C-alpha cells in the first residue's frame, strides 16, 4: 500500500543551497529513484538528477541517502520505515552542478593518467593467448560500473580536497592493479602505483569496498595486493640496503 513519505532533498548549485522538505507518495516495490522522479513530476519540475538504466548498471544515479553513498535506483524504499525522513544529497566529494548532479570529471582525469594496456612487443592483436586462471583476478575488477561511489566515500579526498592532485582513488588504483595482474601486460606499474597514483595515501580502511554496488573487494583484492607488490619493490630492507651500498636506482 502507498503512503506519504517524508523527504529532505538538497537543492542548489555552486552558489549555495540547502535541504528542502517534501512529502511524496511512496508505493510498494519502489526504489528511491522512483520517488525522486515522482517529486520531479509533481512538485519540483526543475529538480536535477542524473540517471539512465534504473537497473544498477550504468553508474549514473550515484548520490547519498541518509548520509551513505548509494545508487538511487538500487536503494529500495522497503529498507526504510514509513515514518522515517529520508535525506538525499549529492555526492560530497565532487563539485556540484545542480541539485543531485555533480561534476565527476575528476575521475576521467585520473583515468587518463594511467598508461593503457601494454602487450609484449612481439605479439600482434589477435595473437594474445591467456589462460582463464591467469585473467580471473583482473576480471573481478571489470565488473566496475564506474558509479564513483568508492571515490566519493574515500576519506583521502572526501575530507581532504588537497589530496586530489596526488591520489587516483580506489577506482583507479584498482585499474592499476587490474593491469599489473594482467598476464600479458608489461607496463611495470608497481612503483608508479605508489609514486604517481598515491597508493600510500590509502590507509586500507575499506570504505570503498563497503559502498561498491558491484561488491568488488577493492581493498582486499586490489589495494592490499598492490601494497604488497610495492613493499616488494620499494620497502624491502635488503633491497634498500643494496641500493644504498651500490648506489643503484630502483
Amino acid at each position, binding site marked *: 500500500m502507498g503512503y506519504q513519505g517524508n523527504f529532505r532533498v538538497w537543492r542548489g548549485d555552486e552558489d549555495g543551497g540547502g535541504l528542502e522538505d517534501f512529502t511524496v507518495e511512496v508505493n510498494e516495490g519502489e526504489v528511491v529513484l522512483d520517488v525522486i522522479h515522482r517529486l520531479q513530476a509533481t512538485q519540483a519540475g526543475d529538480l536535477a538528477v542524473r540517471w539512465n538504466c534504473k537497473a544498477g548498471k550504468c553508474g549514473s544515479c550515484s548520490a547519498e541517502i*541518509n548520509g551513505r553513498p548509494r545508487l538511487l535506483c538500487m536503494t529500495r524504499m522497503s529498507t526504510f520505515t514509513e515514518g522515517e525522513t529520508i535525506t538525499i544529497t549529492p555526492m560530497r566529494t*565532487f563539485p556540484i552542478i545542480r541539485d543531485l548532479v*555533480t561534476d565527476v570529471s575528476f575521475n576521467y582525469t585520473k583515468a587518463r593518467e594511467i598508461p593503457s594496456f601494454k602487450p609484449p612487443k612481439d605479439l600482434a592483436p589477435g595473437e594474445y593467448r591467456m589462460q582463464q*586462471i591467469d585473467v580471473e583476478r583482473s576480471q573481478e575488477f571489470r565488473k566496475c560500473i564506474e558509479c564513483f561511489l568508492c571515490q566519493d566515500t574515500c576519506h583521502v579526498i572526501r575530507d581532504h580536497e588537497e589530496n586530489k592532485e596526488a591520489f587516483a582513488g580506489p577506482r583507479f588504483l584498482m585499474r592499476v592493479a587490474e593491469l599489473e595482474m594482467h598476464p600479458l601486460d608489461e607496463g611495470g606499474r608497481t612503483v608508479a602505483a605508489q609514486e604517481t597514483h*598515491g597508493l600510500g595515501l590509502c*590507509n586500507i580502511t575499506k570504505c570503498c569496498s563497503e559502498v561498491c554496488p558491484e561488491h568488488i573487494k577493492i581493498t582486499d583484492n586490489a589495494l592490499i595486493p598492490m601494497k604488497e607488490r*610495492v613493499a616488494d619493490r620499494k620497502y624491502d630492507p635488503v633491497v634498500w640496503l643494496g641500493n644504498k651500498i651500490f648506489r643503484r636506482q630502483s
Partner: protein
Amino acid sequence: MRAQISERTLRTDRWWLSPLLTVAGLGLISVYAAIRTFMNDYYWVSEYHYLTPMYSPCLSAECVPAASHFGQPLPELPGFLTPPIFIIPFLLGFRITCYYYRKAYYRAAWMSPPACAVAEPHKTYTGETKAPLIAQNLHRYFFYAASLLLLVNIYDAITAFVGEKGFGIGLGNIILLVNVGLLAAYTASCHSCRHIMGGKLKHFSKHPVRYWMWQKISKLNAKHMQLAWASLIFVCLTDLYIALVASGVIGDLRIVN
C-alpha cells in the same frame, strides 16, 4: 565548489558503535596483557606441563627452568622487565602492522575516518606515505617472525600432553590445541602470506601448487577479521585458564590421566 552541506555526516544509523566496540575490546585486551606481562608468575603448570603462549618461548635466566623449552640463552632481566619482553615486540608488531588491525585502529582510535562518510577531525592527512606509518610496509617481516613463534606454540601444545605423571589429556591440552589452531588460521590468512605464497605471481598457470595455496589462503583471508579477533581473545582465555590452574584457583579438568 562542492555542495554546501555543513553537517559532518548525515548518517542516521549507529555508525559510532563499531569504533566504540573496537576501542573497548582492544583496550581491555591490552590492559589484560600488560597485567599478565608484569605479573611474571603463574605461566607454567609444572604438573601438566602447560605453558601459556604469552610466555613462550621463555628464554631468560629467571624463567622456571622446566618452562624454558629452548634453553635460557638470555640473562636475568633487570627491574620490572619480564621474559615476555623478548617476544612482545614481534607479536605486537605483527598485530599492529596487520592490515586488519590497521583498519581497526585507524578508524576507531585515530578516527581517520571514524566510519565511512563521516568526516575525520584531522586538518591534514598523509596516510601511510611518511614515517612512522610508512613502516607498515614491513608487515611481512613480522609475519615471518610470528610464524616462527607459532611453531614454538605448536611445540608447546604437543609436549603438554606429557606431564610429570606421563601421558595425559586435560582441558588445558584441548585449550592449547584450539589456541594454536586459531593462531595458525590467523597467521595463514594474513595478506602478506597470501601475497608471498602466490598472490605476487603474474601467471598462476605456470605455478599450479602455489596457485592452489593462493586459493586456499584467499578463502581464509576473507575471514581475516574474524580470525584476528577470535585468535586474540582466545590467547587471553588460554592464558587466563593456565594462570588460574597454575595459581591453584581451579584444578585442571582431566580427561585421561
